[in-house]
């Protein structure tokens, strides 16, 4: 599991690569929280297009970061066009409250 974080104006761009399960999400969560809590950004953009696996632990991770952004009066959006991952996000009701774009460029253009 790899994680890349980058600030772009008011947004923290978080790119996840590899397999996102309960094991890897613990570590990812700590790293995102450590960064985001001291960063001046208030929105989070999660790029899931390089994930090769995600189960419902990923849903928990995203929900949690959605709340962190809310606490800073920001919001969270997702970049993903992987059918299987979108299906799990949809099933979990996340897409009712979180905006989804097919890729990072489109997500950033629409922030």
């Amino acid at each position, binding site marked *: 599991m790899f994680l890349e974080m980058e600030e772009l104006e008011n947004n923290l761009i978080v790119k996840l690569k590899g397999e996102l*399960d*309960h*094991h890897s999400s613990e570590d990812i969560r700590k790293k995102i929280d450590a960064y985001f809590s001291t960063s001046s950004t208030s929105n989070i953009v999660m790029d899931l297009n390089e994930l090769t696996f995600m*189960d*419902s632990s990923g849903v*928990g991770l995203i929900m949690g970061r959605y709340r962190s952004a809310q606490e800073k009066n920001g919001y969270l959006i997702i970049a993903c066009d992987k059918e299987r991952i979108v299906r*799990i996000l949809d099933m979990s009701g996340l897409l009712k409250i979180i905006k989804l774009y097919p890729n990072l460029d489109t997500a950033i253009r629409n922030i």
Partner: protein
Amino acid sequence: MDKNYMKLEFLSKSANESFARVVVAAFASQLDPTLEELSDIKTAVSEAVTNAIIHGYEYGEGVIIIEAFIVDNLINITIRDSGKGIKNIEEAMEPFYTSKPDLERSGMGFTVMETFMDSLVVESSEGKGTVVRMTKEIKNLSDEER
């Protein structure tokens, strides 16, 4: 593949979640599943193993047992823990129900298993442990259909 069987025991460590997925996927691949079918199986196994670690053993030491049977093109997977068990199975299986929202659980584990597998049966007894039984038929698509 006519018939095959395997049984895997391992410690309830979260590092073993991906190991369990690889093992079941390698076994299931004898049925020549599509990548989609293989991902369905991996996802369901991941949910059940994660539940055994988090809810069954509550991060404590324990042993998780996975059994898998192949009969013709059906795979039958059982995931078992000897952990705390589930009081109300019906409630537990409802979408969004989780007993550990503080741990950022979504309550979607059983729903994911049900969606990605053909059948799901959960047996549990408080203080004794939980057994999750799942089956999936591998369609054996021809190359053109894939």
